[in-house]
């Protein structure tokens, strides 16, 4: 059934064996099961419906390895602190926590932020780790689960509001073909709130492969804003899976912003498993060169009276490709569901392309759902209007593109982060002119 390139390369098997020496027996079993499942599923090929437009063949052509040493200094990291300095900070260098560069000491009562590997015995970890993101049909989740070791653990106790943003900062590079399998777990207990920024950066132009899985659990009446910011170089393979499980009256905002990478695949699954839940999914991808950005989202309305609102926008230049696949399930019990989805793309060149596929599956009869996808060029009439006021053609194009993108960025509540991203997109669009 499976092609040979899909099976576990030998170097990964060695890595697995080393990793699986650590942790409780139950975790070792999970890793083993995941590995066995990965061996069956194999690295997805384009024959797989969910990977039709995303060819991972280039990934299987190189041999990746985990990086051995930390080489970064504080000064190097400062530029990547896109949410400012007043944060709880975990710096992961090639997937591994660099404690010297991180600062997560003296946290307020009720807030735990640290390395996942240090918290394997935490009751919330035992209860939740690998219990939400299923690897049954997701090969890349299975691959990550087989390597659970590095990553962040965030726990916000009942009634606690984490005032400082929590910044998980990942930097790859320093050597060729590095590999990382970060695994994050966040639990927001009842009536708690927190803001998390997950940002990804490269040092230099080396190729790297990151296969990351994040599980976020929102208990009743909790509120989490999660910003996933991908700023890596154009030789990075970034395969991510974010699984969020929401309980009644909770609110989850997630922003997935992609400015870099060679092949980027983001799976985002949200299960609305309670009444009166709100989920806001925002996405922005700005691509050029021959990069590919693929966002697969799944919003699963399992219970009544919930709202999901999804807006993904893309600006594609050069020969880059975009993929958007947005599924919304409204299950039989999920009456009075409001579910909205919109995907809008601007193609800046003749060679850029976009594949958009909205999918709604509705099994309840009293719901409000809408979806739409558009792909086109900048509005010619608007361009002429700007030019007729003295604004040059290139500046006018940048103007309209930035306004298009700001629509998504304006939804980020952290002002420092928002402004930083706006600056970066400004710089980038004005530079390419």
């Amino acid at each position, binding site marked *: 059934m499976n092609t040979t390139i899909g099976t576990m390369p030998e170097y990964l098997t060695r890595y697995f064996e080393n990793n699986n020496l650590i942790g409780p027996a139950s975790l070792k079993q999970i890793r083993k099961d995941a590995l066995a499942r990965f061996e069956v599923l194999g690295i997805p090929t384009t024959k797989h419906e969910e990977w039709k437009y995303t060819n991972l063949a280039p990934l299987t052509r190189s041999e990746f390895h985990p990086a051995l040493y930390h080489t970064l200094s504080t000064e190097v990291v400062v530029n990547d602190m896109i949410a400012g300095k007043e944060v709880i900070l975990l710096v992961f260098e090639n997937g591994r926590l660099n404690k010297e560069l991180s600062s997560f000491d003296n946290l307020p009562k009720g807030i735990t932020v640290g390395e996942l590997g240090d918290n394997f015995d935490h009751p919330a970890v035992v209860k939740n780790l690998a219990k939400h993101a299923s690897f049954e049909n997701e090969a890349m989740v299975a691959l990550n689960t087989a390597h659970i070791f590095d990553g962040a653990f965030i726990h916000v106790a009942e009634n606690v509001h984490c005032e400082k943003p929590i910044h998980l900062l990942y930097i790859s590079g320093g050597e060729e073909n590095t590999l990382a399998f970060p695994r994050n777990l966040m639990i927001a207990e009842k009536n708690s709130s927190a803001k998390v920024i997950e940002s990804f950066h490269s040092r230099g132009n080396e190729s790297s492969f990151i296969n990351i899985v994040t599980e976020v659990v929102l208990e009743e009446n909790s509120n989490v804003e999660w910003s996933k910011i991908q700023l890596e170089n154009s030789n990075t393979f970034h395969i991510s899976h974010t699984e969020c499980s929401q309980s009644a009256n909770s609110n989850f905002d997630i922003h997935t912003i992609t400015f870099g990478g060679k092949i980027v695949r983001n799976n985002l699954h949200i299960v609305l498993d309670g009444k009166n839940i709100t989920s806001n999914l925002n996405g922005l991808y700005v691509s050029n060169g021959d990069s590919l950005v693929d966002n697969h989202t799944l919003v699963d309305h399992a219970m009544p009276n919930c709202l999901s609102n999804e807006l993904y926008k893309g600006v594609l230049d050069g020969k880059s490709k975009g993929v958007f696949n947005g599924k919304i399930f409204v299950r039989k019990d999920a009456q009075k569901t409001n579910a909205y989805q919109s995907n809008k793309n601007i193609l800046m060149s003749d060679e850029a392309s976009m594949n958009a596929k909205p999918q709604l599956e509705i099994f309840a009869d009293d719901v409000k759902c809408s979806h739409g996808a558009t792909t086109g060029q900048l509005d010619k*009439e608007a361009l*002429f209007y700007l030019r007729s*006021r003295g604004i040059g053609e290139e500046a006018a194009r940048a103007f309209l593109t*930035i306004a298009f993108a*700001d629509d998504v960025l304006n939804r980020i509540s952290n002002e420092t982060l928002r402004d930083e991203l706006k600056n970066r997109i400004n710089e980038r669009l004005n530079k390419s002119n």
Partner: protein
Amino acid sequence: MLKIKNLSARVEEKEILRGLNLEVGKGEVHAIMGPNGSGKSTLASVLSGRDTFEVTDGSVTYNGEDLLDLSPEERARKGIFLAFQYPVEIPGVTNANFLKTALNEIRKSKGLAPLDAKDFLILMREKMKLVEMDKSMTQRSVNEGFSGGEKKRNEVFQMAMLEPTLSILDETDSGLDIDALRIVANGVNALRSPERSFVVITHYQRLLDYIVPDFVHVLYKGRIVKSGTKELAFELEEKGYDWIKEEVDAAKV
């Protein structure tokens, strides 16, 4: 200032302007009237550089320079302004940011330093009064959700900010009630000076009660078929366009 000679233009295969001649001198206000489909808006579009029209014959010079060779932004920087018949909505771009960029681009082309935030604000406040515009409009996206009257007022506000030497008003009066018309006309009149010229395109004489022109021209079938002073506009108001059409069509036979 503006010399249009034997101008012909078409959109796709359709000939719209057919040998149009017009001269506009410094400080003059010219009204262009005419029945629907006579080519009024096409003339405005060709002068401002909209590329959906192809000029097939003739010439347009502006202060001695070939205008048709210039891009829309170059024309704007040289002082030409088109008040759109249908102003465009631009979501996500605030009026203030848009105008500041436009103004500074024009200043740059003249070798002037950009206006700083404070001076820009002072200028904006002053010009807003001119068209009785609410302060909140500058922070709203360009024309987004504006009423028809607000959009037209915004066009005149932009004109006041950019201080063009040749303004072309394309049916700025259409869709305006009498109060909005008065406000828009006041804005235009405040800008009149011996250095500035206006081409006012309109379907109705009504606007010309407020913006009194030096000359009135009738455009019909892509050509100026009659020129006169403001009295011609009164005559048109009274008698309609049919007598002119008949005159022109008869002369052709």
